[in-house]
């Protein structure tokens, strides 16, 4: 076989090539006929007869599926409620769900598909920063719209993205400040080895420097790693008499960290841990026995006492089961569908530019309290600190009196100090220097 190419081979080559082209073609033709109305960028789109198509783009498979499926549920619940209440502009919302498969290029690919082929009016999606960064270009080059529901490290302000989770100044900075005021000044920073923890810790270190705290050490665990003995030793060496641990670990590592902390005798009274990635769902998976007495900072806890929250928790449990819990990213995902709906109704169209303009200034009585879309495409949100209690939910020990305005560009990081973002004013845009700082 190693030499030459007979007739047989030719047949094979030919048929394989032919088959491939047929397959590819058959995949591509049907959805394109009819919808291809000349606007390759899909600037309006989404409206089709009696329905408005929206995209949902999260990981349904792979490592991130565990977290992301919960926000998909919240988004679907909101869509269902809206549809039952009559829909948007009198039309039903039709969700096109795509799987990002925990793989960032796939996210970009699926985003392009939603925009170009499905012609959706808006996309709700992403969890990790990496996936958001991967699709950001797609949304920008197609001038489309993404709503993003998760707390993140900030330092971004895209015209085409609305961020409904917390910016660092709505979660991390208040938490650090609260710890400095109530718990002490010596901090050990623990995180998974990727962008969010590293950026968050940069912010925290700057903040501690400015506010009179000390960073006594920091360490990063590879994603998925469950051997935390070396880190615990470092904590013991750096903080022999106790101190604060600021935790930005992610996923499986959290479980290992808290289980092994307890075994090593690092108890919450001496070593309180402040986490920013642990919500009600995670408490259940880690096991509340290990977390009782530790802290978390969020905008929303299931235990928030508002009528909207009561109603939402009830609706969620009715839909997905009594044993389920709600948490911050789910809440952010839930409210962003409503915020988008309000914007569309105010604009009276799904035209992207009009919706974008209308979105700014939208207010909504969310389960967490009043939220407002700011000109920098982030939300004003109330900040809360919760302590894990015996039933695995959070005791809210502190909260801000009123919603905190978001800062897209961090004011503790030298490179972005004094910058802000404003999409309501064309002359300012993504990043401009604030005069009076």
């Amino acid at each position, binding site marked *: 076989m190693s030499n030459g190419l007979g007739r047989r081979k030719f047949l094979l080559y030919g048929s394989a090539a032919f088959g491939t082209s047929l397959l590819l073609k058959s995949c591509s033709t049907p959805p394109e006929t009819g919808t291809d109305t000349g606007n390759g960028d899909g600037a309006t789109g989404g409206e089709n007869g009696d329905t408005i198509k929206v995209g949902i783009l999260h990981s349904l498979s792979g*490592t991130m*599926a*565990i977290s992301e*499926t919960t926000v998909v549920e919240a988004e679907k619940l909101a869509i269902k409620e809206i549809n039952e209440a009559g829909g948007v502009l009198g039309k039903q919302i039709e969700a096109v769900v795509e799987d990002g498969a925990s793989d960032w290029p796939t996210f970009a690919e699926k985003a392009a598909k939603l925009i170009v082929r499905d012609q959706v009016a808006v996309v709700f999606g992403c969890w990790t920063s990496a996936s958001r960064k991967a699709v950001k270009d797609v949304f920008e080059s197609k001038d489309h719209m993404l709503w993003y529901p998760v707390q993140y490290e900030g330092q971004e302000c895209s015209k085409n993205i609305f961020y409904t989770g917390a910016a660092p100044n709505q979660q991390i900075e208040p938490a650090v400040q609260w710890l400095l005021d109530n718990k002490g000044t010596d901090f050990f920073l623990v995180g998974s*080895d990727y962008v969010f923890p590293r950026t968050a810790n940069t912010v925290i270190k700057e903040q501690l420097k400015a506010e009179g705290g000390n960073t006594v050490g920091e*360490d*990063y*665990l*590879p994603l*998925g*790693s*469950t*051997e*935390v*003995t*070396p*880190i615990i*030793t*470092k904590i*013991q*060496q750096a903080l*022999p008499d106790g101190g604060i641990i600021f935790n930005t670990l992610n*996923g*499986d590592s*959290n*479980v*290992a960290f808290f*289980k*092994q902390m*307890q*075994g*090593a*005798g690092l108890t919450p009274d001496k070593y309180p841990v402040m986490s920013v990635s642990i919500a009600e*769902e995670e408490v*259940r*998976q*880690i*096991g509340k*026995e*290990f977390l009782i007495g530790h802290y978390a900072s969020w905008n929303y806890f299931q235990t928030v006492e508002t009528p909207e929250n009561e109603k939402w928790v009830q609706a969620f449990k009715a839909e997905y089961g009594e044993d389920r819990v709600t948490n911050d990213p789910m809440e952010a995902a839930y409210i962003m569908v409503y915020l988008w709906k309000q914007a569309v109704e105010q604009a009276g169209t799904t035209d992207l530019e009009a919706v974008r303009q209308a979105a700014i200034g939208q207010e909504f009585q969310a389960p967490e309290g009043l939220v407002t879309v700011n000109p920098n495409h982030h939300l004003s949100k109330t900040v809360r600190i919760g302590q894990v209690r015996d039933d695995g939910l959070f005791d809210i020990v502190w909260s801000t009196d009123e919603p905190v305005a978001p800062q897209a560009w961090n004011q503790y990081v030298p490179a972005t100090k004094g910058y802000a973002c404003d999409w309501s004013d064309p002359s300012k845009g993504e990043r401009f220097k604030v005069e009076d700082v």
Partner: protein
Amino acid sequence: MLELAVGIFNGFSIGSVLLLAALGLAIVFGLMGVINLAHGELMMLGAYATFVVQNIFQGFGDGALNLYIFVALPVAFIVSAIAGLILERGVIRFLYGRPLETLLATWGISLILRQFVRSVNGVLVLGIVLFCLLFFGGLWFLSKRTDWERIRTAAISALLPLSLAISAVAGVLVSKTGVEVLTKPWFSARNVDVTPPAWLRGGFSVGIYQLPYSRIFIIVLTVLCLLGIYWFLNRSIWGLRIRAVTQNREMSACLGIPTDTVDALTFAIGSGLAGIAGCAITLLGSVGPNTGQNYIVDVFMVVVVGGVGNLFGTVIAALAIGIVTYLIGSGTLALMFSNSDALQPLTDFFTFFAATSMAKVMVFALIIAFLQVKPSGIFPQKGRTAEL
């Protein structure tokens, strides 16, 4: 001095987890030259078995709950051993002598097992049971016929799609009825919460340090497993047979040792040990579909460094890797050099690698360096049979 003692303890405890996880893999590798990429998933099955046992014990009140781990260990062993047995009989035995293909096949199995725990529910289990009944029942029925040998291929190729289709249709129909008991995933894709018994959650205080009971438990468990395996291999009749087949498969077969049974048994025991390891790691870490993947590459390194066919090598390799990981990761190496200015570059170097994630890079580099000196592991096989 105290630091040193605690450091050694910590190194040993990291090593013992590795060792426990690697033990089964090493035995299987030694006997059959097969690397099982699904080993981590067998550990995961053990961890899920522990979860189930824990939930059952929750019904019996707190007193019983404290003891669940002692039931979970044998259950985990049995569950994983059975899974391993099915694996060996169903796939791996067709691939002996083709180690690279085995690698790929076991990866396929690992993917399937991961998805299995995510989506397993009543319907899926019903479907599988139905399929097995139809397929194997059909084969059994047909094999009574006198012309079985002749129709064998045809029968299999007819039965397989037929029973697949029937069970698939049945599954779809059942799930259409929407009975929640059947359609609700048992575990879902989320991590599940396994909480060690209360008496394993504390620790033994030594100065400012506290040695976790869970770690001590795992070290003891590892030692017990080692002794058990040692006893089994060296004192029991099947152990003798396993050793015989490891040494010379053809000769053993000629002497009437049922090599097929030996293979299956060894694989089952290796898998069972993975189950025990899975149970043990629930004390330390998370239990989820990806649990196995978190450990597997480290465990492979232990086997590579330990060498084939000598458990003592595996023990030393696991402990050595554990201690080195600890020394680098905890920054102890960096501290050791920090006293003298002349060694400043060295200190910087070790500080850079002291981040736990970078410690992995360093450990790998050391393993590669070690293999330059001892390419076949700590205890290489010698003599004529070593390399053919």
